[in-house]
């Protein structure tokens, strides 16, 4: 088991190193922060001075090494734009983002899983087709389209909900609804197909044949088996709790991580962008790790494999 954890931890570390490196390379190659932050009309001396101040005049591999050693030492750098430390800028925004993404995740689970299970139990009925049509619409429609439709209906036409900002809990309703719909659709589809597969297994017949009431057959015998693919998808959604709101936050002017990322990329504010990417990578890696542990908990047949690795 210790070996399993060590291998996992090493893989997680390598993933984060890769993300950090990739972000560094792409951002450095896609534009000069000095030009963007100082503006096109800045005098050449000022630009040279800016480059020197931020170490941008060094060869790229020296920049990378100093950046990398700083990160290893826990120093995520300083925002080139306003001189604040990048990590505090990012941490300030996290609560706002979680205010949207956590309720949205709960909503996805609360709608998607029961809808999918219901559709599986009433396979090929009108209800099943209705749920699946809704799910397809939910996850194929881009979130900005769905968000705009909601704004059009609830803010413009009926005027019952605000279309942007973060002042009251009412402001959170439309962004949360927009974020939930796609995930709920995906979860419904996965829950349905997982349940249909499990319902055809011989042990379901055994459970019925011993006289177990139908409801217990479904929730105690079928659902724990169907949980594995559902947990995989849910783990992915948990991994995007921090990063998942770029479009929706921009659309509803919600001051979260997503909007900070958009602004920082546009400004080539390297430290902030890298700090956000690092955090996203870390949440992804952690949620993947938790999912792997959960697999072993959900399916005893996988436990031996984990112990062996």
């Amino acid at each position, binding site marked *: 088991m210790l070996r399993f954890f060590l291998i996992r931890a090493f893989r997680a570390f390598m993933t984060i190193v890769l993300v950090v490196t990739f972000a560094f390379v792409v951002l450095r190659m896609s534009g000069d922060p000095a030009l963007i932050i100082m503006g096109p009309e800045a005098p050449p001396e000022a630009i040279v001075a800016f480059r020197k101040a931020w170490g941008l005049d060094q060869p790229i591999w020296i920049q990378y090494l100093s950046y990398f050693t700083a990160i290893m030492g826990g120093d995520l750098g300083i925002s080139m734009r306003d001189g604040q430390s990048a990590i505090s800028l990012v941490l300030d925004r996290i609560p706002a983002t979680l205010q949207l993404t956590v309720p949205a995740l709960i909503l996805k689970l609360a709608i998607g899983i029961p809808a999918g299970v219901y559709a599986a139990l009433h396979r090929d009925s009108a209800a099943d087709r209705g749920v699946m049509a809704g799910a397809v619409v939910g996850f194929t429609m881009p979130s900005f389209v769905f968000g705009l439709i909601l704004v059009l209906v609830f803010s413009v036409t009926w005027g019952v909900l605000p279309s942007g900002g973060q002042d009251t809990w009412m402001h959170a309703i439309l962004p949360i609804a927009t974020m939930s719909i796609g995930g709920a659709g995906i979860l419904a589809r996965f829950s349905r197909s997982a349940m249909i597969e499990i319902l055809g*297994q*011989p*042990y379901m*017949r*055994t*459970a*019925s*044949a*011993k*006289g*177990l*009431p*139908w409801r217990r057959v479904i929730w*105690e*015998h079928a659902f*724990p*088996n169907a949980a594995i693919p559902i947990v995989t998808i849910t783990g992915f959604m948990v991994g995007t709790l921090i990063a998942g709101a770029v479009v929706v936050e921009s659309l509803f002017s919600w001051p979260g991580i997503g909007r900070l990322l958009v602004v920082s990329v546009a400004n080539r504010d390297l430290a902030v962008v890298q700090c956000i990417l690092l955090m996203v990578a870390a949440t992804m890696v952690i949620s993947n790790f938790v999912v792997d542990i959960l697999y072993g908990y*959900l*399916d*005893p*047949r996988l436990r031996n494999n984990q112990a062996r690795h």
Partner: protein
Amino acid sequence: MPLVEISNLGVAFSGVPVLHGINLKIEKGEAVGLVGESGCGKSVTWLAALGLLPGKAAVSGSVRLGEEELVGAPREKLEQVRGGRIAMIFQDPSSSLNPVLRAGRQIAEAVELHQGLAGAAARAEAIRLMDLVGIPGAARRFDNYPHEFSGGQNQRLMIAMALAGKPDLLVADEPTTALDATIQAQILDLLISLRQETGMAIVFISHDLGAVSQICERVCVMYAGRIVEQCSTEMLFRAPRHPYTRGLFDAIPRLDAGRERSIPIPGTVPQAGRMPAGCAFAPRCGYATDVCHNQVPALSGTEGRATACFNALDEMRSATASGTTKQKVEFA
């Protein structure tokens, strides 16, 4: 009054009939074999009786358990019968147990449902049942998962689960087909001794005539959704009267046959929905006459011996080969 009386039971899947009016009585405590090729309706008969077929199956006719009618009975009533009065075990024990639930727990669940025990008492009873069916170290293995047991042990666990409800009838649906020959023999012995101890009736569904002969006093041979021959096991082995039954015996490889091959039945079972007009076996039958192709023979004869055939074989014609076969089968 018989324990179970099935009359004119029919099953159709999406409008295609697969069971054409089965009549079968099971007396208290008797062991009856249901024999036939895969797809002939042996299992479907009992799945239909217990309401375990999927929703697209249309069930007609009647299944009476004592005074109670099971066909069309409400779900709550069927749930009490299942496991409580009629228990069923299945062909592939390893996939018939839930892989993510502890084996002992799955047995305790049946104990809770049918004996009204709970908690530690249910656990103790489940361990007693595991012990009874020959799981070594039952108390220690209660918390193991099905994949930690062998195939034969999984079938023992299934039997323990079936016994939890103290059923009047155990339907064993090919319980030994997926197991090694030595394990098969152990499971058969277990079923025989459990029947002696509990007095429950057994319906043994199999295509293995040898296994059937060890457990059952009476055999029904099924073909394409009908019972074609029904008599005591002894009579069936001495002198099968239906050409299909005879074909089954001839198809068994014989130890004393030297280089001679066993004789397979020519052709294949007709598909449900494409049944020939007359007797379903007529196209494969060496004894078929004109009437066989036009008319379906009814199961006729006495209570003890009935055959659905216009050209049933007489004692002389049928006795020769199969008399010796029985010994060989038992040997194997």
